[in-house]
Protein backbone atom coordinates (compact mmCIF):
# COMPACT_ATOMS: atom_id res chain seq x y z
CA UNK A 1 0.00 0.00 0.00
CA UNK A 2 1.49 3.34 -0.97
CA UNK A 3 1.64 5.79 1.88
CA UNK A 4 0.30 9.28 1.57
CA UNK A 5 3.28 10.73 3.40
CA UNK A 6 5.65 12.64 1.13
CA UNK A 7 9.05 10.93 0.92
CA UNK A 8 11.17 14.00 0.25
CA UNK A 9 10.32 17.64 -0.06
CA UNK A 10 7.30 17.19 -2.23
CA UNK A 11 6.40 19.64 -4.92
CA UNK A 12 2.97 20.15 -3.40
CA UNK A 13 4.30 21.08 0.02
CA UNK A 14 5.78 24.39 -0.96
CA UNK A 15 9.02 25.61 0.58
CA UNK A 16 7.59 26.70 3.96
CA UNK A 17 5.81 23.48 4.88
CA UNK A 18 8.93 21.43 4.22
CA UNK A 19 10.49 22.72 7.38
CA UNK A 20 7.49 22.17 9.65
CA UNK A 21 7.46 18.39 9.24
CA UNK A 22 3.99 17.07 8.52
CA UNK A 23 2.60 19.74 6.22
CA UNK A 24 -0.90 21.11 6.32
CA UNK A 25 -1.56 20.95 2.63
CA UNK A 26 -4.30 22.73 0.80
CA UNK A 27 -7.06 20.82 -0.94
CA UNK A 28 -5.64 21.79 -4.34
CA UNK A 29 -2.18 20.54 -3.44
CA UNK A 30 -3.51 17.23 -2.11
CA UNK A 31 -5.67 16.53 -5.12
CA UNK A 32 -3.02 17.63 -7.61
CA UNK A 33 -1.81 14.09 -8.45
CA UNK A 34 -5.41 13.04 -9.09
CA UNK A 35 -6.07 16.09 -11.26
CA UNK A 36 -2.97 15.23 -13.28
CA UNK A 37 -3.98 11.58 -13.57
CA UNK A 38 -7.67 12.14 -14.30
CA UNK A 39 -7.57 12.59 -18.12
CA UNK A 40 -5.26 9.61 -18.67
CA UNK A 41 -7.14 7.37 -16.27
CA UNK A 42 -10.46 8.31 -17.86
CA UNK A 43 -9.16 7.28 -21.28
CA UNK A 44 -7.78 3.99 -19.94
CA UNK A 45 -10.98 3.25 -18.06
CA UNK A 46 -13.26 3.84 -21.05
CA UNK A 47 -11.06 2.30 -23.74
CA UNK A 48 -9.16 -0.43 -21.88
CA UNK A 49 -10.78 -1.52 -18.63
CA UNK A 50 -14.42 -1.28 -19.71
CA UNK A 51 -13.77 -3.17 -22.97
CA UNK A 52 -11.88 -5.82 -20.99
CA UNK A 53 -14.87 -6.29 -18.72
CA UNK A 54 -17.15 -6.27 -21.74
CA UNK A 55 -15.27 -8.93 -23.68
CA UNK A 56 -15.80 -11.14 -20.65
CA UNK A 57 -19.52 -10.30 -20.60
CA UNK A 58 -19.77 -11.03 -24.35
CA UNK A 59 -18.11 -14.39 -23.80
CA UNK A 60 -21.08 -15.41 -21.62
CA UNK A 61 -23.58 -14.63 -24.37
CA UNK A 62 -24.60 -15.89 -27.78
CA UNK A 63 -23.59 -12.53 -29.18
CA UNK A 64 -24.07 -11.98 -32.91
CA UNK A 65 -25.10 -9.21 -35.27
CA UNK A 66 -28.69 -9.00 -33.90
CA UNK A 67 -27.32 -8.36 -30.39
CA UNK A 68 -24.85 -5.73 -31.69
CA UNK A 69 -27.65 -3.90 -33.47
CA UNK A 70 -30.24 -4.10 -30.68
CA UNK A 71 -27.82 -3.91 -27.74
CA UNK A 72 -29.94 -6.54 -25.96
CA UNK A 73 -28.04 -9.17 -23.94
CA UNK A 74 -28.47 -12.84 -24.76
CA UNK A 75 -27.01 -14.82 -21.87
CA UNK A 76 -26.06 -18.46 -22.33
CA UNK A 77 -23.83 -18.99 -19.32
CA UNK A 78 -20.60 -20.85 -19.94
CA UNK A 79 -21.77 -22.34 -23.25
CA UNK A 80 -19.10 -20.63 -25.35
CA UNK A 81 -16.33 -21.79 -23.03
CA UNK A 82 -17.68 -25.34 -23.09
CA UNK A 83 -17.68 -25.25 -26.87
CA UNK A 84 -14.14 -23.86 -27.05
CA UNK A 85 -12.69 -26.28 -24.51
CA UNK A 86 -14.29 -29.36 -26.06
CA UNK A 87 -13.42 -28.36 -29.59
CA UNK A 88 -11.02 -30.64 -31.48
CA UNK A 89 -9.72 -27.53 -33.25
CA UNK A 90 -8.43 -26.08 -29.96
CA UNK A 91 -6.44 -29.08 -28.78
CA UNK A 92 -5.06 -30.39 -32.04
CA UNK A 93 -4.39 -27.14 -33.90
CA UNK A 94 -4.83 -23.86 -32.07
CA UNK A 95 -3.08 -24.51 -28.75
CA UNK A 96 -0.03 -26.19 -30.33
CA UNK A 97 0.15 -23.30 -32.81
CA UNK A 98 -0.01 -20.81 -29.94
CA UNK A 99 1.88 -22.33 -27.01
CA UNK A 100 4.20 -24.64 -28.95
CA UNK A 101 5.08 -21.83 -31.29
CA UNK A 102 5.64 -19.34 -28.45
CA UNK A 103 8.01 -21.76 -26.67
CA UNK A 104 9.97 -22.34 -29.86
CA UNK A 105 10.02 -18.67 -30.84
CA UNK A 106 11.10 -17.47 -27.40
CA UNK A 107 13.90 -20.04 -27.15
CA UNK A 108 15.14 -19.23 -30.64
CA UNK A 109 14.89 -15.46 -30.17
CA UNK A 110 16.61 -15.40 -26.77
CA UNK A 111 19.35 -17.87 -27.79
CA UNK A 112 20.09 -16.08 -31.05
CA UNK A 113 19.82 -12.59 -29.51
CA UNK A 114 22.21 -13.55 -26.71
CA UNK A 115 24.69 -15.11 -29.14
CA UNK A 116 24.67 -11.90 -31.16
CA UNK A 117 25.14 -9.85 -27.98
CA UNK A 118 28.20 -11.94 -27.06
CA UNK A 119 29.55 -11.49 -30.58
CA UNK A 120 28.99 -7.71 -30.40
CA UNK A 121 30.64 -7.53 -26.98
CA UNK A 122 33.78 -9.09 -28.48
CA UNK A 123 34.00 -6.49 -31.26
CA UNK A 124 35.78 -3.15 -31.20
CA UNK A 125 33.73 -0.04 -30.45
CA UNK A 126 33.47 1.13 -34.06
CA UNK A 127 32.32 -2.22 -35.46
CA UNK A 128 29.96 -2.68 -32.53
CA UNK A 129 28.27 0.63 -33.41
CA UNK A 130 27.97 -0.26 -37.10
CA UNK A 131 26.54 -3.74 -36.51
CA UNK A 132 24.12 -2.48 -33.81
CA UNK A 133 22.73 0.11 -36.22
CA UNK A 134 22.11 -2.59 -38.83
CA UNK A 135 20.35 -4.70 -36.23
CA UNK A 136 18.13 -1.70 -35.48
CA UNK A 137 16.94 -1.84 -39.09
CA UNK A 138 15.54 -5.33 -38.48
CA UNK A 139 13.78 -4.08 -35.34
CA UNK A 140 12.38 -0.99 -37.04
CA UNK A 141 10.78 -2.96 -39.87
CA UNK A 142 7.02 -2.76 -39.22
CA UNK A 143 5.35 -6.15 -38.68
CA UNK A 144 3.04 -5.63 -41.65
CA UNK A 145 5.70 -4.77 -44.23
CA UNK A 146 8.14 -7.26 -42.71
CA UNK A 147 5.59 -10.03 -43.11
CA UNK A 148 4.86 -9.07 -46.72
CA UNK A 149 8.59 -9.12 -47.50
CA UNK A 150 8.92 -12.65 -46.09
CA UNK A 151 5.81 -13.73 -48.03
CA UNK A 152 7.40 -12.27 -51.16
CA UNK A 153 10.72 -14.03 -50.51
CA UNK A 154 8.95 -17.39 -50.14
CA UNK A 155 6.33 -16.73 -52.83
CA UNK A 156 5.45 -19.93 -54.70
CA UNK A 157 5.65 -18.62 -58.26
CA UNK A 158 8.23 -15.86 -58.27
CA UNK A 159 9.82 -15.88 -54.83
CA UNK A 160 13.60 -15.66 -54.61
CA UNK A 161 13.78 -18.68 -52.27
CA UNK A 162 12.26 -21.05 -54.83
CA UNK A 163 14.34 -19.46 -57.61
CA UNK A 164 17.57 -20.07 -55.71
CA UNK A 165 16.65 -23.64 -54.73
CA UNK A 166 15.79 -24.43 -58.34
CA UNK A 167 18.92 -22.89 -59.83
CA UNK A 168 20.95 -24.88 -57.32
CA UNK A 169 19.15 -27.99 -58.51
CA UNK A 170 17.72 -28.73 -55.06
CA UNK A 171 14.14 -28.89 -56.31
CA UNK A 172 12.58 -29.40 -59.72
CA UNK A 173 9.35 -27.42 -59.47
CA UNK A 174 8.38 -24.43 -57.30
CA UNK A 175 7.02 -25.38 -53.89
CA UNK A 176 4.15 -23.57 -52.15
CA UNK A 177 5.58 -23.19 -48.65
CA UNK A 178 2.39 -21.73 -47.20
CA UNK A 179 0.06 -24.70 -47.51
CA UNK A 180 1.90 -27.02 -45.12
CA UNK A 181 1.40 -26.24 -41.44
CA UNK A 182 5.07 -26.85 -40.55
CA UNK A 183 6.66 -24.84 -43.32
CA UNK A 184 4.07 -22.09 -42.75
CA UNK A 185 5.10 -21.77 -39.12
CA UNK A 186 8.79 -22.11 -40.01
CA UNK A 187 8.40 -18.90 -42.01
CA UNK A 188 6.50 -17.25 -39.15
CA UNK A 189 9.33 -18.32 -36.83
CA UNK A 190 11.94 -16.81 -39.13
CA UNK A 191 9.91 -13.59 -39.28
CA UNK A 192 9.48 -13.43 -35.48
CA UNK A 193 13.11 -14.20 -34.67
CA UNK A 194 14.30 -11.68 -37.25
CA UNK A 195 12.05 -9.00 -35.80
CA UNK A 196 12.48 -9.92 -32.13
CA UNK A 197 16.14 -10.70 -31.60
CA UNK A 198 17.38 -7.05 -31.70
CA UNK A 199 15.51 -6.29 -28.46
CA UNK A 200 17.23 -9.24 -26.77
CA UNK A 201 20.62 -8.31 -28.19
CA UNK A 202 20.45 -4.65 -27.17
CA UNK A 203 19.24 -5.45 -23.64
CA UNK A 204 21.69 -8.29 -23.01
CA UNK A 205 24.59 -6.35 -24.54
CA UNK A 206 24.00 -3.43 -22.20
CA UNK A 207 24.07 -5.84 -19.24
CA UNK A 208 27.11 -7.74 -20.56
CA UNK A 209 29.15 -4.56 -20.77
CA UNK A 210 28.33 -3.96 -17.12
CA UNK A 211 29.77 -7.26 -15.82
CA UNK A 212 32.91 -6.45 -13.79
CA UNK A 213 36.05 -7.30 -15.77
CA UNK A 214 37.76 -8.60 -12.62
CA UNK A 215 35.32 -11.54 -12.50
CA UNK A 216 36.09 -12.56 -16.07
CA UNK A 217 39.80 -12.05 -15.53
CA UNK A 218 39.86 -14.15 -12.38
CA UNK A 219 37.92 -16.97 -14.06
CA UNK A 220 40.25 -16.89 -17.04
CA UNK A 221 43.33 -17.07 -14.85
CA UNK A 222 41.75 -20.00 -13.02
CA UNK A 223 41.56 -21.73 -16.40
CA UNK A 224 37.82 -21.50 -17.14
CA UNK A 225 37.07 -21.87 -20.86
CA UNK A 226 34.77 -19.63 -22.90
CA UNK A 227 31.59 -21.66 -22.36
CA UNK A 228 32.36 -22.13 -18.68
CA UNK A 229 32.94 -18.37 -18.25
CA UNK A 230 29.66 -17.65 -20.02
CA UNK A 231 27.45 -20.04 -18.08
CA UNK A 232 29.15 -19.80 -14.65
CA UNK A 233 30.02 -16.09 -14.50
CA UNK A 234 27.95 -14.12 -17.01
CA UNK A 235 24.58 -15.90 -16.85
CA UNK A 236 24.21 -15.72 -13.03
CA UNK A 237 25.13 -12.02 -13.13
CA UNK A 238 22.48 -11.40 -15.80
CA UNK A 239 19.71 -13.54 -14.29
CA UNK A 240 17.35 -10.61 -13.79
CA UNK A 241 17.92 -9.29 -17.30
CA UNK A 242 17.27 -12.71 -18.80
CA UNK A 243 14.09 -13.06 -16.78
CA UNK A 244 12.71 -9.79 -18.14
CA UNK A 245 13.80 -10.54 -21.71
CA UNK A 246 12.27 -14.02 -21.67
CA UNK A 247 8.98 -12.88 -20.18
CA UNK A 248 8.62 -9.91 -22.55
CA UNK A 249 9.34 -12.17 -25.55
CA UNK A 250 6.84 -14.72 -24.28
CA UNK A 251 4.13 -12.09 -24.01
CA UNK A 252 4.83 -10.86 -27.54
CA UNK A 253 5.06 -14.30 -29.10
CA UNK A 254 1.75 -15.40 -27.60
CA UNK A 255 0.09 -12.45 -29.31
CA UNK A 256 1.43 -13.05 -32.82
CA UNK A 257 -1.34 -11.84 -35.12
CA UNK A 258 -0.37 -9.87 -38.22
CA UNK A 259 2.54 -12.23 -38.91
CA UNK A 260 0.07 -15.12 -39.29
CA UNK A 261 -3.01 -13.29 -40.54
CA UNK A 262 -1.24 -11.64 -43.48
CA UNK A 263 0.34 -14.83 -44.79
CA UNK A 264 -1.40 -16.72 -47.60
CA UNK A 265 -4.15 -18.80 -45.98
CA UNK A 266 -3.43 -17.23 -42.59
CA UNK A 267 -6.68 -15.26 -42.41
CA UNK A 268 -8.85 -18.28 -41.68
CA UNK A 269 -8.96 -20.11 -45.03
CA UNK A 270 -6.36 -22.61 -43.84
CA UNK A 271 -7.78 -23.97 -40.58
CA UNK A 272 -4.51 -25.81 -39.88
CA UNK A 273 -2.55 -22.63 -39.15
CA UNK A 274 -4.95 -20.82 -36.80
CA UNK A 275 -3.60 -19.61 -33.47
CA UNK A 276 -5.66 -18.27 -30.55
CA UNK A 277 -5.64 -14.63 -31.66
CA UNK A 278 -6.44 -15.32 -35.30
CA UNK A 279 -9.08 -17.90 -34.38
CA UNK A 280 -10.82 -15.41 -32.09
CA UNK A 281 -10.77 -12.75 -34.80
CA UNK A 282 -11.94 -15.06 -37.57
CA UNK A 283 -14.83 -16.43 -35.49
CA UNK A 284 -15.91 -12.91 -34.46
CA UNK A 285 -15.55 -10.88 -37.60
CA UNK A 286 -15.64 -13.66 -40.18
CA UNK A 287 -18.53 -15.74 -38.78
CA UNK A 288 -20.22 -12.98 -36.74
CA UNK A 289 -19.96 -15.22 -33.66
CA UNK A 290 -18.75 -12.44 -31.39
CA UNK A 291 -19.59 -14.30 -28.19
CA UNK A 292 -17.62 -17.37 -29.21
CA UNK A 293 -14.72 -15.22 -30.41
CA UNK A 294 -14.81 -13.33 -27.11
CA UNK A 295 -14.53 -16.61 -25.18
CA UNK A 296 -11.37 -17.48 -27.15
CA UNK A 297 -10.03 -13.98 -26.52
CA UNK A 298 -10.71 -14.35 -22.79
CA UNK A 299 -8.68 -17.57 -22.74
CA UNK A 300 -5.79 -15.81 -24.48
CA UNK A 301 -6.02 -12.91 -22.05
CA UNK A 302 -5.99 -15.24 -19.04
CA UNK A 303 -2.85 -16.95 -20.32
CA UNK A 304 -1.13 -13.60 -20.83
CA UNK A 305 -2.29 -12.45 -17.41
CA UNK A 306 -0.62 -15.46 -15.81
CA UNK A 307 2.66 -14.59 -17.56
CA UNK A 308 2.22 -10.94 -16.60
CA UNK A 309 1.91 -11.85 -12.92
CA UNK A 310 5.31 -13.54 -13.13
CA UNK A 311 6.65 -10.48 -14.93
CA UNK A 312 5.34 -8.03 -12.35
CA UNK A 313 6.86 -10.07 -9.54
CA UNK A 314 10.21 -10.06 -11.33
CA UNK A 315 10.06 -6.30 -11.76
CA UNK A 316 9.03 -5.70 -8.17
CA UNK A 317 12.09 -7.66 -7.04
CA UNK A 318 14.32 -5.33 -9.02
CA UNK A 319 12.91 -1.89 -8.31
CA UNK A 320 10.38 -0.10 -6.22
CA UNK A 321 7.54 1.19 -8.35
Amino acid at each position, binding site marked *: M*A*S*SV*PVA*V*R*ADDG*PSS*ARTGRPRRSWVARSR*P*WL*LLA*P*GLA*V*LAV*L*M*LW*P*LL*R*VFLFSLQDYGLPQIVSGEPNWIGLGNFAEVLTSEQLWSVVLPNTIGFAVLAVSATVAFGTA*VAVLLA*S*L*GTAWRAVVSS*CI*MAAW*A*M*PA*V*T*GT*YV*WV*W*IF*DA*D*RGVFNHVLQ*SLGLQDAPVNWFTDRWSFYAIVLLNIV*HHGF*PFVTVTVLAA*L*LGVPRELIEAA*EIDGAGGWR*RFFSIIVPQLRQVFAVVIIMST*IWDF*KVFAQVF*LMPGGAGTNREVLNLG*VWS*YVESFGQNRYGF*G*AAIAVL*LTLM*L*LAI*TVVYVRTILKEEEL
Partner: protein
Amino acid sequence: MSVLSVRRPTPRAQVGKAVAVVALLVFTLFPAYWMLVSAFDAKAGLGTSFVPAEPTVEHFRFVLTEGGFDVFLRNSAVVALVTVLVSAVLALLASVAVARFRFRLRTQILLMILVVQMVPLEALVIPLFVQVRNLQLLETLLGLIVVYVALALPFGIWMLRGFVAAVPVELEEAAYIDGASWGRMFRSILLPLVAPGLVATSIFSFITAWNEFLFAMTLLGGATENYTVAIGLRSFFGQFSNEWGAIMAASTLITVPVMVFFILVQRRLAAGLTSGAVKG
Protein backbone atom coordinates in the same frame (compact mmCIF):
# COMPACT_ATOMS: atom_id res chain seq x y z
CA MET B 1 39.86 -6.43 -26.90
CA SER B 2 36.95 -8.52 -25.86
CA VAL B 3 34.62 -7.89 -22.98
CA LEU B 4 34.38 -11.60 -22.25
CA SER B 5 38.08 -12.33 -22.29
CA VAL B 6 41.23 -10.44 -21.34
CA ARG B 7 43.52 -12.39 -23.66
CA ARG B 8 44.36 -11.33 -27.21
CA PRO B 9 42.24 -13.29 -29.70
CA THR B 10 44.08 -15.75 -31.96
CA PRO B 11 44.05 -15.13 -35.76
CA ARG B 12 41.72 -18.09 -36.22
CA ALA B 13 39.25 -16.61 -33.74
CA GLN B 14 39.49 -13.30 -35.61
CA VAL B 15 38.53 -14.94 -38.92
CA GLY B 16 35.68 -16.83 -37.27
CA LYS B 17 34.38 -13.59 -35.83
CA ALA B 18 34.54 -11.83 -39.18
CA VAL B 19 32.58 -14.64 -40.82
CA ALA B 20 29.97 -14.50 -38.05
CA VAL B 21 29.58 -10.73 -38.45
CA VAL B 22 29.11 -11.01 -42.21
CA ALA B 23 26.53 -13.80 -41.82
CA LEU B 24 24.70 -11.76 -39.19
CA LEU B 25 24.59 -8.67 -41.41
CA VAL B 26 23.31 -10.67 -44.37
CA PHE B 27 20.54 -12.19 -42.23
CA THR B 28 19.46 -8.87 -40.65
CA LEU B 29 19.62 -6.74 -43.75
CA PHE B 30 18.42 -9.14 -46.44
CA PRO B 31 14.65 -8.53 -46.07
CA ALA B 32 15.07 -4.74 -46.16
CA TYR B 33 17.53 -5.05 -49.05
CA TRP B 34 15.24 -7.35 -50.98
CA MET B 35 12.31 -4.98 -50.43
CA LEU B 36 14.35 -2.12 -51.96
CA VAL B 37 15.64 -4.23 -54.85
CA SER B 38 12.13 -5.39 -55.78
CA ALA B 39 10.71 -1.88 -55.40
CA PHE B 40 13.23 -0.45 -57.87
CA ASP B 41 13.18 -3.35 -60.34
CA ALA B 42 10.84 -3.37 -63.34
CA LYS B 43 11.36 -7.13 -63.61
CA ALA B 44 10.87 -7.95 -59.93
CA GLY B 45 10.61 -11.69 -59.45
CA LEU B 46 11.31 -12.68 -63.06
CA GLY B 47 14.88 -13.83 -62.46
CA THR B 48 17.33 -14.60 -59.70
CA SER B 49 19.20 -11.33 -59.97
CA PHE B 50 20.20 -9.88 -56.59
CA VAL B 51 20.43 -6.35 -57.97
CA PRO B 52 17.66 -4.60 -59.94
CA ALA B 53 17.74 -6.12 -63.44
CA GLU B 54 16.01 -3.10 -64.92
CA PRO B 55 16.15 -0.12 -62.50
CA THR B 56 13.01 1.99 -62.46
CA VAL B 57 10.91 4.24 -60.24
CA GLU B 58 7.75 3.23 -62.07
CA HIS B 59 6.46 1.19 -59.10
CA PHE B 60 6.65 4.24 -56.86
CA ARG B 61 4.92 6.40 -59.45
CA PHE B 62 2.18 3.78 -59.74
CA VAL B 63 1.49 3.40 -56.00
CA LEU B 64 1.50 7.14 -55.39
CA THR B 65 -0.92 7.94 -58.23
CA GLU B 66 -3.20 5.12 -59.42
CA GLY B 67 -2.50 3.07 -56.31
CA GLY B 68 -3.92 5.81 -54.08
CA PHE B 69 -1.04 5.60 -51.65
CA ASP B 70 -0.78 9.39 -51.48
CA VAL B 71 -4.15 9.36 -49.72
CA PHE B 72 -3.18 6.45 -47.44
CA LEU B 73 0.05 8.21 -46.47
CA ARG B 74 -1.84 11.40 -45.65
CA ASN B 75 -4.42 9.48 -43.58
CA SER B 76 -1.70 7.69 -41.65
CA ALA B 77 0.18 10.93 -41.04
CA VAL B 78 -2.96 12.65 -39.71
CA VAL B 79 -3.88 9.71 -37.48
CA ALA B 80 -0.34 9.30 -36.16
CA LEU B 81 0.24 13.01 -35.48
CA VAL B 82 -3.04 13.57 -33.63
CA THR B 83 -2.44 10.36 -31.64
CA VAL B 84 1.04 11.59 -30.72
CA LEU B 85 -0.15 15.03 -29.61
CA VAL B 86 -3.05 13.83 -27.49
CA SER B 87 -1.26 10.87 -25.92
CA ALA B 88 1.85 12.95 -25.18
CA VAL B 89 -0.15 15.51 -23.19
CA LEU B 90 -2.11 12.86 -21.29
CA ALA B 91 0.99 10.74 -20.63
CA LEU B 92 3.05 13.69 -19.43
CA LEU B 93 0.45 14.80 -16.90
CA ALA B 94 -0.07 11.27 -15.61
CA SER B 95 3.65 10.51 -15.45
CA VAL B 96 4.30 13.62 -13.35
CA ALA B 97 1.63 12.43 -10.96
CA VAL B 98 3.12 8.96 -10.49
CA ALA B 99 6.77 10.04 -10.53
CA ARG B 100 6.58 13.13 -8.30
CA PHE B 101 3.80 12.45 -5.80
CA ARG B 102 3.14 9.78 -3.22
CA PHE B 103 -0.58 9.18 -2.80
CA ARG B 104 -3.02 6.44 -1.97
CA LEU B 105 -3.48 3.81 -4.71
CA ARG B 106 -0.32 4.97 -6.52
CA THR B 107 1.21 1.48 -6.62
CA GLN B 108 -2.08 -0.01 -7.76
CA ILE B 109 -2.36 2.52 -10.59
CA LEU B 110 1.21 1.78 -11.71
CA LEU B 111 0.52 -1.94 -11.71
CA MET B 112 -2.67 -1.37 -13.67
CA ILE B 113 -0.73 0.62 -16.29
CA LEU B 114 1.84 -2.16 -16.50
CA VAL B 115 -0.77 -4.89 -16.82
CA VAL B 116 -2.96 -3.25 -19.49
CA GLN B 117 0.06 -3.17 -21.79
CA MET B 118 -0.05 -6.96 -21.89
CA VAL B 119 -3.69 -7.19 -22.92
CA PRO B 120 -3.95 -8.75 -26.39
CA LEU B 121 -5.48 -6.47 -29.01
CA GLU B 122 -7.60 -9.38 -30.18
CA ALA B 123 -9.48 -9.19 -26.88
CA LEU B 124 -10.01 -5.43 -27.11
CA VAL B 125 -11.04 -5.35 -30.74
CA ILE B 126 -14.45 -7.01 -30.23
CA PRO B 127 -15.82 -4.67 -27.53
CA LEU B 128 -14.15 -1.61 -29.05
CA PHE B 129 -15.70 -2.41 -32.42
CA VAL B 130 -19.13 -2.44 -30.76
CA GLN B 131 -18.33 0.73 -28.82
CA VAL B 132 -17.06 2.65 -31.86
CA ARG B 133 -20.05 1.41 -33.83
CA ASN B 134 -22.44 2.73 -31.20
CA LEU B 135 -20.70 6.10 -31.35
CA GLN B 136 -21.21 5.99 -35.13
CA LEU B 137 -17.48 6.43 -35.66
CA LEU B 138 -16.93 3.29 -37.77
CA GLU B 139 -15.12 4.02 -41.05
CA THR B 140 -13.83 7.35 -39.71
CA LEU B 141 -10.30 8.39 -38.81
CA LEU B 142 -11.57 9.86 -35.54
CA GLY B 143 -12.67 6.44 -34.28
CA LEU B 144 -9.22 5.09 -35.07
CA ILE B 145 -7.45 7.99 -33.36
CA VAL B 146 -9.46 7.53 -30.16
CA VAL B 147 -8.43 3.87 -30.00
CA TYR B 148 -4.77 4.58 -30.80
CA VAL B 149 -4.51 7.17 -28.03
CA ALA B 150 -5.58 4.50 -25.58
CA LEU B 151 -3.12 1.99 -27.05
CA ALA B 152 -0.19 4.41 -26.89
CA LEU B 153 -0.98 5.79 -23.44
CA PRO B 154 0.14 3.03 -21.01
CA PHE B 155 3.58 2.69 -22.56
CA GLY B 156 3.89 6.47 -22.78
CA ILE B 157 3.16 6.93 -19.08
CA TRP B 158 5.52 4.10 -18.17
CA MET B 159 8.37 5.52 -20.22
CA LEU B 160 7.91 9.20 -19.32
CA ARG B 161 7.75 8.31 -15.66
CA GLY B 162 11.43 7.37 -15.84
CA PHE B 163 12.35 10.65 -17.49
CA VAL B 164 10.41 12.72 -14.95
CA ALA B 165 11.93 10.81 -12.05
CA ALA B 166 15.40 11.49 -13.48
CA VAL B 167 14.97 15.26 -13.10
CA PRO B 168 16.64 16.16 -9.78
CA VAL B 169 14.18 17.24 -7.11
CA GLU B 170 16.73 19.91 -6.09
CA LEU B 171 15.94 21.84 -9.26
CA GLU B 172 12.27 21.95 -8.32
CA GLU B 173 13.10 23.05 -4.80
CA ALA B 174 15.32 25.81 -6.16
CA ALA B 175 12.41 27.05 -8.21
CA TYR B 176 10.15 27.17 -5.13
CA ILE B 177 12.78 29.01 -3.14
CA ASP B 178 12.89 31.54 -5.95
CA GLY B 179 9.15 31.97 -5.41
CA ALA B 180 7.76 29.98 -8.31
CA SER B 181 4.30 28.41 -8.10
CA TRP B 182 3.80 24.73 -9.00
CA GLY B 183 2.49 25.67 -12.43
CA ARG B 184 5.44 27.95 -13.09
CA MET B 185 7.87 25.27 -11.95
CA PHE B 186 6.17 22.75 -14.27
CA ARG B 187 6.45 25.04 -17.28
CA SER B 188 9.92 26.46 -16.70
CA ILE B 189 11.80 23.59 -15.05
CA LEU B 190 10.15 20.21 -15.54
CA LEU B 191 8.87 20.59 -19.09
CA PRO B 192 12.16 21.64 -20.72
CA LEU B 193 14.05 18.94 -18.85
CA VAL B 194 11.75 16.08 -19.84
CA ALA B 195 11.55 17.32 -23.44
CA PRO B 196 13.96 14.63 -24.76
CA GLY B 197 11.87 11.98 -23.04
CA LEU B 198 8.75 13.52 -24.52
CA VAL B 199 10.28 13.33 -28.00
CA ALA B 200 11.29 9.69 -27.53
CA THR B 201 7.84 8.76 -26.18
CA SER B 202 6.13 10.64 -29.01
CA ILE B 203 8.14 8.74 -31.59
CA PHE B 204 7.11 5.45 -30.03
CA SER B 205 3.45 6.54 -30.13
CA PHE B 206 3.93 7.58 -33.74
CA ILE B 207 5.33 4.17 -34.64
CA THR B 208 2.45 2.43 -32.80
CA ALA B 209 -0.16 4.39 -34.74
CA TRP B 210 1.73 4.18 -38.05
CA ASN B 211 2.19 0.39 -37.93
CA GLU B 212 -1.13 -0.65 -36.38
CA PHE B 213 -3.04 -3.06 -38.53
CA LEU B 214 -5.75 -4.94 -36.62
CA PHE B 215 -7.90 -1.96 -35.60
CA ALA B 216 -7.40 -0.16 -38.90
CA MET B 217 -8.69 -3.23 -40.73
CA THR B 218 -11.64 -3.73 -38.36
CA LEU B 219 -12.81 -0.16 -37.78
CA LEU B 220 -12.28 1.26 -41.26
CA GLY B 221 -14.09 -1.61 -43.00
CA GLY B 222 -14.75 -0.72 -46.62
CA ALA B 223 -14.04 3.01 -46.39
CA THR B 224 -11.10 2.88 -48.81
CA GLU B 225 -10.70 6.66 -48.84
CA ASN B 226 -9.88 6.55 -45.12
CA TYR B 227 -7.42 3.63 -45.28
CA THR B 228 -4.11 3.97 -43.50
CA VAL B 229 -0.88 2.67 -45.04
CA ALA B 230 -0.88 -0.62 -43.11
CA ILE B 231 -4.15 -1.78 -44.67
CA GLY B 232 -3.76 0.21 -47.90
CA LEU B 233 -1.08 -2.30 -48.83
CA ARG B 234 -3.69 -5.02 -49.15
CA SER B 235 -5.27 -3.33 -52.16
CA PHE B 236 -2.29 -4.44 -54.28
CA PHE B 237 -3.05 -8.08 -53.69
CA GLY B 238 -5.02 -9.28 -56.68
CA GLN B 239 -7.23 -12.29 -56.67
CA PHE B 240 -4.99 -14.16 -59.13
CA SER B 241 -1.68 -12.35 -59.16
CA ASN B 242 0.01 -9.92 -56.81
CA GLU B 243 1.72 -6.72 -57.92
CA TRP B 244 4.89 -7.48 -55.99
CA GLY B 245 6.86 -4.56 -57.40
CA ALA B 246 4.12 -2.16 -56.26
CA ILE B 247 3.72 -3.90 -52.90
CA MET B 248 7.45 -3.59 -52.19
CA ALA B 249 7.51 0.06 -53.33
CA ALA B 250 4.61 0.83 -50.98
CA SER B 251 6.30 -1.15 -48.19
CA THR B 252 9.41 0.96 -48.70
CA LEU B 253 7.33 4.13 -48.32
CA ILE B 254 5.90 2.79 -45.03
CA THR B 255 9.17 1.51 -43.64
CA VAL B 256 11.48 4.45 -44.34
CA PRO B 257 9.85 6.93 -41.89
CA VAL B 258 9.82 4.27 -39.17
CA MET B 259 13.50 3.46 -39.66
CA VAL B 260 14.46 7.14 -39.61
CA PHE B 261 12.49 7.66 -36.39
CA PHE B 262 14.03 4.58 -34.82
CA ILE B 263 17.51 5.94 -35.36
CA LEU B 264 16.39 9.29 -33.91
CA VAL B 265 15.01 7.60 -30.79
CA GLN B 266 18.28 5.79 -30.25
CA ARG B 267 20.16 9.08 -30.12
CA ARG B 268 17.54 10.91 -28.05
CA LEU B 269 17.38 8.21 -25.43
CA ALA B 270 21.10 8.57 -24.85
CA ALA B 271 20.98 12.35 -24.54
CA GLY B 272 21.43 13.27 -20.89
CA LEU B 273 20.06 16.78 -20.69
CA THR B 274 20.00 16.81 -16.92
CA SER B 275 23.53 15.59 -16.35
CA GLY B 276 25.50 18.34 -14.62
CA ALA B 277 22.47 20.58 -14.21
CA VAL B 278 22.69 20.46 -10.42
CA LYS B 279 26.42 20.99 -10.09
CA GLY B 280 26.04 24.13 -12.27
